[in-house]
Structure formats: structure tokens, C-alpha cells
């Protein structure tokens, strides 16, 4: 049964010459799981908002959107609100009320559902999602992943037929994100719920979806089964860079046949088609300078007297001129490490030295002057002014001296920029203090694959200028690509440390998809490029 039909839809924002979306047509069958991808500004969010009537922006629109055979314009208010569910990107800001149970009941209250019915449906939903334990909590106490799960549950409690999600996992750590996607898959299979989602993090979602759609500059250019779409976009690196590692390896190898999507599929594909006579690439020898930029020795820290140690016996040395990535689970103390290094929190025991001097010796905030700077996780907290230009003037930054170009963003409000642009603008402001040691907290959070690769380039260029960089990240692929050394943070200290090749090939679970795919077949292939390179060197098996 056809649940959603979009025909010749075009939309133009007021005061804009170019159309945001143009002549988009597609249909969704009941129970289909569709993923929409495309670069920043390609009109993905606009398209989603055209389907959810309440969120449709003002502007010139032509074409029709029909839901279950009826134009969405003619649906009555209650059906339009409840039958199409919408989950947005930022977990925090979609939450309306202060208590978990009230948030679940909110949609039902709006529809005027009776007490008994509301009690039943919220209880049911809480049990299905395992929310029971925190049903009575304040929403401010929840983690990001829990908040997004609550947003999903409080939309589903209204029993929608179609669920629309706009980058729901962008702000979550990888584990919470794959849990969230697993939940979506379960909903899709158990209840045949129709799902349409926009996503950047495609590694987990492409293998489970039925349909992959690509939107480019407002045009729907590809739509079909994921394997087919990947085959047809193989030459387009700016779209491909977000695809699963298996698909990227496949595309890099110029090979016909269906594209593998999962790690399992990728492994089979490599084993069937390529030999492993040469098992590893020649290692690029890495030697760091002998001068330490940041030294932490036996550091202990806790937030309150009663709480447990967040940092316990932390030893960490970062040498000047290197990019060091600190990886680890949620709440393991990674961010706290950066705060301790930048003296935002005071440790109760241990020693921290920056460029050979103790933190205490940096009097009068000289620490932050041409020495150390930190870019926080939420980059919106960096901005204080109304335009990027004022922002940079305020900090005394010179746009031309930056290792990247943001001159086209200068007259925009910082909050109107996309995630990747915000990240670069904030970094520009931080760089104004000419730090020699730069601390970054999750610089790739919420970024699409293209912005992420741009961030990698920027970091490399900064490194070439002699800046030492310590980044905290959840993103193993990013760390594998840009780090000189990586460290795994667990239980308040760094438990293992090494170059990406050593580090990721040593880990079995906390590692990149390419490394999992080639484990035991090739050695030390941690990025998709390295794996593809090895395949190419070994050559296709004969007789095929």
C-alpha cells in the first residue's frame, strides 16, 4: 500500500532566487525504511519539513504531498499531528516538559486523550523502550542517548503511521547512535512502521534500509536499493565519503557486481576476489619530537567530595607538533582531562605541565595567551556576537591568516551556519589567541562526512604550522585518518597508546570498520583507503 506520494514538489524560500528543492517525486510503501542523504544545503531538511505539514516553512511551493491517498493540506489537524511523527536532530531542544512521564504524555494531552488511555499508552511505551527505570526522573538528568530515545518514544506514543527523522543520531556518541538505529530497525520490522530518515552517519543505517535516496542541490538524483545506488554513484567522492567502509572499498576497486554493505559482506568480498600474498603496507615510520607539550602525571580529580574519581592516576604525555586523539566511552573522563589541562577544573593530586611549565606558573591567565586554547564540544558556546565578522574582530582574528577559507560566511549569524561551518568559525575564533597547544572536544560531532574530511585537512595544516593538537573523540574513523598517536581512555586514565596502525589493529572491538573487515587477512589496514590499496597491490584473483 502506498503511504506517501510526493509529486513534482518544488519549494523556494522567500527572498531566495534558487529553489531549495525542485521537481522531487517519490513514493513510499507501507513498511518501507528509506534513508535520504546528501550534502549540507542540499535541501534534505526542507524536503522532510514539506512532508510534515505543521513544520512546513513559508515560501513558494508547487506540487503535492499526499499521505494515504489524501493531500496533506486536507488532513484534519489531529490526524496530521499524530499520524506523521517527526524527530529532530538536537535531543535537548525538542523536549518540552521537565519530567520524563510528562514528556511522554504531552502529545496525548494535546489530542485530548482521556486519563485512562494516556496512562495505558505511556506505560506501554515506557515498557517497550525500557524507560521504566527513569520514568519519574527530571529530563535534565538524562544522557543524550536517553533524551533522543525519549523523543522517539514520545512521538511513537501518538501511534504514527509514518515516522520522519532529521539526523536523529548526529549528536549522539557511536554506541548510543547504533542503539538508536537498532531500535528503528526493530520498530520497522515488528510494527511495519514506515520510516523516512535523513542521516549522515551511514555506516550503520545503510545496511538496514530498504531504499537509499540521494538529494543533490534540491534534485532527487538517485533512488533505489542501496547496492544499486552505490554502484551508480561510485565516481562521486563527495557523496561516497559518507557510505559504509565496505562500499567505499568496493568503489575504490572499480569492480562490477553488487556492492557489499556490512563488515561481513566486505570481508567475504575481499576474500573472494583478492589474495593476501602481501599482508601489509610499508609502515610510515613515526617519530615524535622529544619535547613534551602537555604532561600529566598521576592526576586525580573528582567533581564533589562524595563522588568518585573521574581522573584516577592519569599519566599522559603529548609531544609537541603531534596530533593526539583520545578515544573512549561516554563518561570515561575524556572531556574532564581537557578541562583539567586547561585549568577549568582544579585537580586534587598530581602534576600537569604545559610546555615544561606547571599550570600554576602561568599567572594572570597567561596560559590562554599564545599558549593553550580549547574548543568545547558545543561550539555554539564560543559565539557571542551577531555576525561571524564581529565575532572574529572581537577575538582579533585575521581571516586571511587562517589555514582555511571562511570569507563567504562572514556576514551570517553564527547560529545560522551549518554544523561544519560553525565548527570552522569557532575554530577561527579560538585560533585568534595563537595557541601552540590546541585542545579540541569532539570536533566531528554532528558533521557530515564531507565536513569531517575537511576538518581532517584543517588539523593537518595546523600541525604543519607547528601547533600541537589534542582531540577527544568518539569517532574512530576520524582518529584513524588524522591522528599521529591515539590513546584509549578508560576508568579515569589512558590504558593504551600508540600510532593508529598499532592502536586500531591491536583493538578488536573498539576499532574502525576497515580494520574489523581485514582482521587476520591483512595486517594494519585501519582505513578504507589502506584496505583498498592493499587489495589493489595484491591484484584480482585469476580466473575471474
Amino acid at each position, binding site marked *: 500500500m502506498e503511504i506517501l506520494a510526493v509529486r513534482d514538489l518544488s519549494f523556494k524560500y522567500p527572498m531566495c532566487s534558487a529553489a531549495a528543492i525542485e521537481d522531487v517525486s517519490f513514493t513510499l510503501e507501507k513498511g518501507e525504511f528509506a534513508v535520504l542523504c546528501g550534502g549540507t544545503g542540499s535541501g534534505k531538511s526542507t524536503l522532510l519539513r514539506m512532508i510534515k505539514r505543521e513544520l512546513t516553512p513559508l515560501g513558494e511551493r508547487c506540487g503535492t504531498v499526499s499521505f494515504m491517498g489524501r493531500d496533506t493540506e486536507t488532513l484534519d*489537524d489531529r490526524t496530521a499531528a499524530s499520524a506523521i511523527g517527526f524527530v529532530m536532530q538536537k535531543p535537548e531542544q525538542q523536549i518540552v516538559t521537565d519530567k520524563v512521564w510528562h514528556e511522554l504524555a504531552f502529545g496525548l494531552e494535546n489530542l485530548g486523550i482521556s486519563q485512562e488511555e494516556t496512562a495505558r499508552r505511556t506505560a506501554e511505551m515506557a515498557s517497550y523502550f525500557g524507560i521504566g527505570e527513569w520514568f519519574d526522573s527530571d529530563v535534565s538528568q538524562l544522557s543524550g542517548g536517553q533524551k533522543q530515545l525519549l523523543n522517539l518514544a514520545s*512521538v511513537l506514543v501518538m501511534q504514527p503511521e509514518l515516522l520522519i527523522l532529521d539526523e536523529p543520531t548526529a549528536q549522539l556518541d557511536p554506541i548510543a547512535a547504533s542503539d538508536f538505529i537498532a531500535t528503528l530497525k526493530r520498530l520497522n520490522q515488528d510494527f511495519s512502521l514506515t520510516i523516512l530518515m535523513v542521516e549522515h552517519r551511514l555506516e550503520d543505517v545503510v545496511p538496514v534500509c530498504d531504499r537509499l535516496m540521494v538529494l543533490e542541490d534540491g534534485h532527487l538524483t538517485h533512488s533505489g536499493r542501496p547496492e544499486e545506488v552505490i554502484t551508480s554513484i561510485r565516481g562521486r567522492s563527495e557523496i561516497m565519503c559518507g557510505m559504509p567502509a565496505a562500499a567505499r572499498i568496493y568503489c575504490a576497486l572499480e569492480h562490477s557486481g553488487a556492492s557489499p554493505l556490512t563488515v561481513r559482506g566486505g570481508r567475504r568480498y575481499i576474500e573472494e576476489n583478492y589474495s593476501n600474498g602481501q599482508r601489509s603496507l610499508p609502515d610510515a615510520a613515526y617519530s615524535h619530537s622529544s619535547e613534551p607539550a602537555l604532561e600529566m602525571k598521576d592526576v586525580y580529580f573528582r567533581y564533589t567530595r562524595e563522588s568518585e574519581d573521574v581522573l584516577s592516576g592519569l599519566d599522559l604525555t603529548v609531544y609537541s607538533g603531534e596530533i593526539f586523539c583520545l578515544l573512549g566511552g561516554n563518561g570515561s573522563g575524556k572531556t574532564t582531562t581537557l578541562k583539567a589541562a586547561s585549568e577549568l577544573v582544579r585537580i586534587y593530586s598530581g602534576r600537569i605541565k604545559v610546555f615544561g611549565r606547571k599550570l600554576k606558573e602561568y599567572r594572570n591567565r597567561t596560559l590562554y595567551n599564545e599558549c593553550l586554547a580549547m574548543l568545547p564540544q558545543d561550539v555554539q558556546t564560543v559565539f557571542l556576537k551577531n555576525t561571524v565578522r564581529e565575532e572574529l574582530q572581537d577575538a582579533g582574528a585575521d581571516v586571511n591568516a587562517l589555514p582555511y577559507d571562511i570569507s563567504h560566511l562572514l556576514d551570517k549569524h553564527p547560529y545560522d551556519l551549518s554544523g561544519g561551518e560553525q565548527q570552522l568559525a569557532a575554530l577561527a575564533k579560538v585560533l585568534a589567541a595563537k595557541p601552540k597547544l590546541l585542545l579540541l572536544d569532539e570536533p566531528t560531532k554532528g558533521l557530515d562526512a564531507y565536513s569531517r574530511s575537511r576538518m581532517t585537512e584543517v588539523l593537518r595544516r595546523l600541525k604543519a604550522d607547528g601547533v600541537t593538537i589534542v582531540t577527544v573523540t568518539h569517532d574512530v574513523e576520524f582518529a584513524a585518518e588524522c591522528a599521529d598517536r591515539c590513546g584509549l581512555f578508560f576508568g579515569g586514565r589512558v590504558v593504551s597508546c600508540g600510532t593508529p596502525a598499532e592502536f586500531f589493529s591491536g583493538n578488536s572491538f573498539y576499532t574502525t570498520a576497515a580494520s574489523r573487515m581485514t582482521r587476520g587477512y591483512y595486517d594494519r589496514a585501519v582505513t578504507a583507503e589502506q584496505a583498498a590499496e592493499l587489495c589493489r597491490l595484491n591484484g584480482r584473483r585469476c580466473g575471474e
Partner: protein
Amino acid sequence: MRSFSEYDPVVIAVFFVTVLSVAMFCGHPIIAAITLFTGVIYNIVLNGRQHMKSHLFFLILFIVLAAANPLVSHNGVTVLFVMNHNPVTLEALLYGINSAAMIVGVLYWFRNFTRIMTSDKLLHIFGRLSPKLSLVLSMALRFVPLFKGQAEKVHDAQRAMGAYKDDNIVDDIRGNMRIFSIIVTWALENGIITADSMEARGYGTGRRTSFTRYRLRGEDIVFLAADLILFGAAIAAIVTDSVEFTFYPVVRGSISGIAGAAGTAAYGIMLLMPVIVEAEVRIRWKYLQSGI
């Protein structure tokens, strides 16, 4: 078998209103003594040994309030001594003690009230009056910690970027003002998304209901009835002037007749009701546990 804090919020609210309306408007020393005494006892029942320091604070407050009156008011006929050519009288001292007992007693009951009346319960009450008002309150309650958290984050971010170059108070104040201004922008920006989320979930499509997880049970009704009867008896005694007291010019007053005695007793029992409920629950639990 629930402790008083788990009773229906409406019952709790009615109880506190009745208690405070007698306590604040009847100046009889015995009434004030009952208010203070039961207020402290219930506070200890609720908090156990925590907050012992706050009791000390209230003791000091009591002494200050009691001593202040005879120093500024010189009414009364019994002069105790003369200080700075001003007579300090016994009546003024007693009046001070009485009003201190009343004020501190009422403060204690307010503390007990805020301890029991969590935001959920307040919302339940407002939800009955107006579902919209209750939603606005709930959103405000969510917003306060959000706003505070963001302000802290912005402050940290600015500091670690070297936004303040010196240990300089003027610089710090200016910095805080700029943070406040951007936080307001942030809040508005945030509000747009929240509004989208509300609209997407059908806000404004029709009449709202207000979901509540409380329902009125037998115990609630019994408690409410007892409260209202005792309150009636106390009010009757006050209205008929059976409980009256004056301090100036001479201390004079009484509790006259059966009405007066019954009213005072009723008030005392009324204020002890939460403690009685609590004691009953604890004893029953002991008994039940010994049977398990």
C-alpha cells in the same frame, strides 16, 4: 498505607492552607506554641538528622526576633529596666517571643510544605485549574536548569579561549554581561525548535487534557474530612472570641469555655495529623516486616 507526602496533592495543599490560615491570623501564644512545636517535630520526621545546621539558624532567628521587639517597642506597664533612657517592658518582651514563635513556626511549616510539594504535585493542582497554565509552569521548570547549564558552558568556553586576558574584575563583569546577552539569543533560538516540536506533536489542535498520575483514594478523603472538621472547630473558637489574647497594656487573655478548649485541641490534633500518619506507616511496616 502511604506516608503523607504520597497523598493526593490537592489534599496536601488544602491541609497546608488550613494550617497556615489559622497559624498566621491567630495571635494566641498557645496556638503559636503548637504551630512551632509541631512544625519542628514534623520537620525532623521528614528530614531525619539531615539539615541539623538549619535548626540552629532558626534558633538564632527566633532569638533575634524575640529580642528585637522590646528594644523598639516600649508599650506595656511592667518596666524591667531602662536602657538608653528607654524602658524595656515585660509585655513587649512577651509579645516579641510570641510573634517570634509564630513567625518561626510558620516558616517551619513552609519548609515542610516545599519539601513535600514537589513540582509534579504543583503541576497536578494547576492542571486541574488550567491545563495551559500547568504546561507553562512545566516548561519554565525545565528551562531554568537548561539556561543555567548553558551559561556555565559559555563561561568555560570563553575562559579557555582567553576571552579575559587579565584577572580583572571589570573585564569579568563585561564578560558576564556579554554571556547573558548571547544566552538570551540562544534561548530564543532554542525556543523555536521547542515550538516546532510542540506543534509537530499536535499542540493547539484542540482542547488539551492534563494527564496526572495521582488519583483520589479512600485515605485521601478521610484525611481531608478530618482536616476540614478540625479546622472548622478551630475557626469556630477563634470567631466566637473563645480564644483571645492581648499583650498591651497588660498581658491578659484566656481560653474560655468548651468551645475554646475544643478549638485549641482541634488545632493541635490537626497539626499532628501528618506525624500521626507517618508514625502509623512506620509501625505498620515494622509489623509487616516482622511477619515476612
